């Protein structure tokens, strides 16, 4: 019987449809399968090298150089020398280079795709249809920013030399997310690909060479974590951008603390995938395929935590199991394969062990009945039901093709479960009801929300997380700020000095916590300018944070109009109390500037809008500028009143609640302000004030897991404490050691007060 007849008689099996890998192997051979780093447009081999394997069959693909700290230093020097000439180019010229990169990637798209699949193990369908087209799109989009950046970001400048460390799950795509905005903003880069997957970064370097990108603008150093450490710790680098595990992110946060390096971290996740009872269930199941069985589940924003409404749970589970049966796992070069290989044996073992632990803790395991290849690292698509929030597999990021499922009863419970995580990267919401969709989208604490879709990406749309999923955004207008630094107006002259009046009758100054003036827990005072001030200790801080945390959800939900009215009213009451502030040492000039500032943020309340992004998709993609949460602020010591207001009101106007530690040189205006706040309808807990020497509270603030962000404006020493200790919950920090002219506006204050949530809403009648 013929083969064709045989296939006809056997219900038409798919057979094999492998993509030809000849061209990729020829490219590897052309380099003798032995690669150096790309430094200053030279190929530099290292003494040590390591093999890079094809995870699909375990064969060795090439030897990769282990770049030494000296070579990292060479790369940094090259990037430093290249910086000024790169910035001296016209925006047009820089745009032309980025455009040339985009074009070259399209011209060599299939070579990139095949090489990526060989190196990483992900299916050719994904590299060919998703990764590489998105890479080209990213460079096109940022060719545009290269052209427009100087006019669109007038009060910002390039940050300098950027060190960029990327993961192995989307090797070239993550490279593009890092390099494109960095170059567009006028920076030069040192990029380290993950040691498992360096090859496409090296092919990319070759393209940079071919298009004549000036030496030193892009440097690619290969190696393991030690090479990464050399980058992170190098003093000649002004910015570190990292995508990878939360664990390494914490280490980077700590080791950059003593420097003024700008930092963006895109870390792990355990993103909820929420299915309501009125959803199009078959489409939701297909969404899950894209959520957790995309790239073998090795996706930081994978929808790995299925939350399903109890009324439809069994029905949905049955549909998922049925769909899992038609997933095809195997040779990633096969064009009919849905899941390829896990990147490395170590990852495979981690997935296996977590799944076993899940089952031991009571989960019910279902695995797709599929044949796995005998060579290489493969794991079958897996569904764990009977999982509860307390289960290890519901908490830990598995980073594999493993979906854990649990149920909810009401929309409110769905939100509670969704937010019951240290992470906050993405969330997917499935419902046919517009009211539910947008309400839940607003409430889920994550940087990306996909309504009735999942794992959608585009250069025009910011990507990045809340909470311990990191900070900073990649893509869109918002992503450019990671590679720019604000030109903050510098302080030029002091306000006139006014003597602080000593009261005739002794006054009792207290702390301001939860809308009340309270005595300090420790019962101590400190003195300044002849006044005794309550000395706040760590318990007072704890109480203030608790008050702020309690007040925060309501304050966030208070309309922006009402917030503005409260701020205007505060200005009104402040004005009426001018004499008290004069007695407290505030000059007429500073007082007027303070009123101006309150008006400024009252004005901004209802004007700092989100945006609608333009991605090539039939979808409404809108952003919300959301509050970050509970802020602790260390005010500058001068000017006392204006500095306190300037470092708190932007936060408050955007819906954060604040624990402020005012100037210690003269806390009296802050104490007077407590009385104004009490009289001005500022809700209890929104604005708390603790008087204390800053060093007393810096460590406690940085350690406190209930504080989401810290602004520190009172000196370098404290700034370093804040930065190095804030890695515990990866709180966002903004430390400004220069003296700022607070009478001049800068949008950086509002930008730092918010986190951007991007909400994708495809539509179609």
């Amino acid at each position: 019987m013929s083969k064709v007849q045989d296939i006809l008689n056997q219900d038409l099996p798919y057979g094999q449809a492998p993509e030809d890998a000849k061209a990729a192997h020829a490219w590897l051979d052309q380099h003798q399968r032995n690669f150096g780093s790309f430094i200053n447009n030279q190929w530099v081999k290292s003494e040590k090298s390591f093999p890079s394997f094809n995870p699909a069959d375990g064969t060795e693909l090439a030897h990769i150089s282990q770049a030494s700290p000296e070579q990292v230093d060479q790369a940094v020097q090259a990037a430093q020398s290249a910086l000024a000439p790169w910035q001296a180019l016209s925006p047009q010229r820089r745009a032309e280079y980025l455009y040339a990169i985009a074009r070259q990637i399209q011209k060599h798209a299939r070579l990139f795709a095949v090489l990526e699949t060989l190196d990483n193990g992900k299916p050719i369908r994904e590299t060919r249809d998703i990764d590489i087209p998105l890479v080209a799109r990213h460079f096109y989009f940022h060719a545009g920013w290269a052209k427009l950046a100087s006019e669109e970001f007038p009060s910002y400048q390039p940050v300098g030399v950027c060190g960029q460390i990327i993961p192995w799950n989307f090797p070239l795509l993550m490279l593009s997310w890092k390099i494109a905005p960095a170059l567009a903003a006028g920076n030069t880069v040192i990029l380290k690909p993950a040691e498992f997957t360096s090859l496409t970064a090296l092919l990319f370097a070759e393209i940079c060479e071919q298009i004549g990108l000036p030496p030193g603008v892009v440097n690619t150093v290969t190696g393991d974590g030690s090479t990464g450490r050399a980058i992170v710790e190098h003093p000649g680098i002004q910015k570190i951008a990292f995508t990878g595990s939360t664990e390494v992110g914490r280490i980077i946060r700590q080791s950059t603390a003593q420097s003024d390096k700008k930092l963006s971290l895109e870390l792990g996740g355990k993103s909820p995938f929420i299915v309501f009872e009125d959803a199009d269930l078959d489409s939701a199941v297909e969404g899950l395929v894209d959520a957790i069985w995309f790239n073998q589940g090795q996706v930081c924003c994978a929808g790995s935590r299925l939350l399903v409404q109890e009324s439809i749970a069994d029905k949905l589970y049955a549909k998922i199991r049925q769909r899992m049966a038609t997933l095809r796992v195997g040779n990633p070069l096969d064009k009919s394969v849905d899941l390829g290989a896990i990147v490395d044996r170590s990852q495979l073992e981690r997935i296996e062990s977590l799944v076993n632990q899940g089952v031991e803790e009571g989960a019910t395991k279902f695995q797709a009945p599929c044949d796995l290849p005998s060579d290489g690292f493969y794991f079958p698509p897996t569904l764990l039901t009977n999982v509860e929030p307390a289960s290890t597999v519901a908490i830990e990021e598995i980073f594999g093709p493993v979906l854990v499922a649990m149920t909810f009863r009401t929309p409110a419970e769905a939100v509670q479960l969704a937010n019951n995580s240290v992470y906050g990267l993405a969330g997917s919401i499935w419902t046919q009801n517009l009211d539910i969709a947008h309400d839940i989208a607003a409430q889920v604490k994550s940087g990306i929300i996909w309504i009735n879709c999942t794992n959608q990406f585009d250069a025009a749309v910011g990507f990045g997380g809340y909470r311990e999923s990191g900070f900073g955004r990649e893509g869109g207008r918002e992503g450019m700020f990671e590679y720019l630094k604000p030109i903050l107006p510098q302080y030029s002259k002091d306000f006139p000095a006014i003597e602080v009046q000593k009261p005739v009758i002794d006054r009792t100054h207290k702390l301001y916590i939860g809308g009340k003036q309270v005595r300090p827990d420790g019962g101590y005072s400190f003195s300044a300018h002849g006044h005794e001030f309550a000395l706040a200790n760590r318990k007072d801080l704890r109480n203030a944070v608790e008050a702020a945390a309690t007040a925060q959800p309501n304050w966030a939900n208070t309309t922006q109009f009402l917030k503005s009215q409260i701020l205007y009213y505060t200005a009104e009451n402040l004005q009426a109390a001018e004499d008290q502030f004069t007695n407290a040492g505030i000059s007429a000039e500073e007082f007027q500037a303070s009123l101006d500032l309150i008006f400024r943020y009252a004005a901004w309340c209802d004007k700092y809008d989100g945006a609608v992004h333009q991605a090539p998709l039939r979808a409404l993609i809108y952003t919300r500028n959301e509050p970050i949460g509970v802020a602790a602020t260390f005010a500058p010591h001068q000017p006392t009143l204006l500095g306190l207001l300037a470092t708190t009101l932007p936060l408050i106007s955007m819906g954060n609640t604040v624990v402020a530690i005012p100037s210690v040189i003269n806390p009296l205006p802050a104490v007077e302000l407590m009385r104004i706040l009490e009289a001005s309808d500022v809700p209890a807990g929104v604005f708390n004030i603790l008087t204390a020497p800053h060093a007393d509270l810096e460590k406690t603030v940085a350690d406190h897991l209930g504080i989401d962000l810290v602004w520190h404006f009172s000196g370098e020493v404290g700034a370093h404490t804040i930065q190095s200790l804030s890695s515990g919950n990866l709180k966002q920090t903004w430390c400004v050691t220069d003296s700022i002219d607070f009478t001049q506006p800068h949008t950086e204050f509002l930008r730092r007060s918010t986190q951007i949530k991007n909400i994708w809403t495809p539509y179609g009648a």
Partner: protein
Amino acid sequence: MQSLTINRSAVDRRADTFTKRRTVKKDHQAAYLIRAIECIDLTTLSGDDTPSNVHRLCVKARQPITPDLQKRLDITPIHTGAVCVYHAYVADAVSNLAGSGIPVAAVSTGFPAGLSPFKQRLEEIHQSVQDGAHEIDIVITRAHALTQNWAALYDEMRAFRDACGSAHVKAILATGELGTYTNVARASAVCMMAGADFIKTSTGKEPVNATLPYALIMTRLIRDYYERSGVKIGFKPAGGIRTAKQATEYLMLMKDELGNDWLYPHLFRIGASTLLSDIERQLEHHVSGRYSAFNRHPMS
């Protein structure tokens, strides 16, 4: 019915990516194309049909690929799934196909608009069955779907079903005229409940005919109906399927969305007239390695 809703963007995305998730090559590709031929309702539905072109069609249905090509593929003889004509040519087709085992399908019930008097539509079915049609492709009253009058659609479909007697009935939804994906889903469900043996996308006369998103919606509903009732309903995309690649995509969609039972003519048909020529060319390429031309293959 009101709770059955379809998310259009999600369906479009699945349909769009499906064709990039699956492909067949070489012998597998040839086998898929042979099976596609076996599932074709070879169709002529033109105002200028005469006994001669219907005869040509029937001969082609009996021998869709040349004996030479069949030999080189080394497969058992094949024929198309059915021949599909207007009522006027049912009797001719039946006699042309005598002894071949190929059923004759008649489009009916005021095809394509379905707006002739109801009694007349039923009578049309009776007469086609009387003339020997084994399969009746009825058209639904689109207005019932567009006005959400599902009870009326159900009653209509029941009446058509009863009129067909032992003949198979395929319900043409005219998906391109139903306005929304949700209506396509609801109409599919109603027609199946009312006894359709097949649900079919289009008459071929609507501005938009068979598309993968429509097919996806309808196959999902067929699966759902099977799970609820244990009854397997067939699927027939029709209109606009002209290339071997499209036919292969529909077969793969059947395989993944419904399962292997739907890879055979008793549960899957493709309504097409020119598709066969393209498949023949592809098969010729498969056996010879050379690209072929239309004039080398007998027309239907």
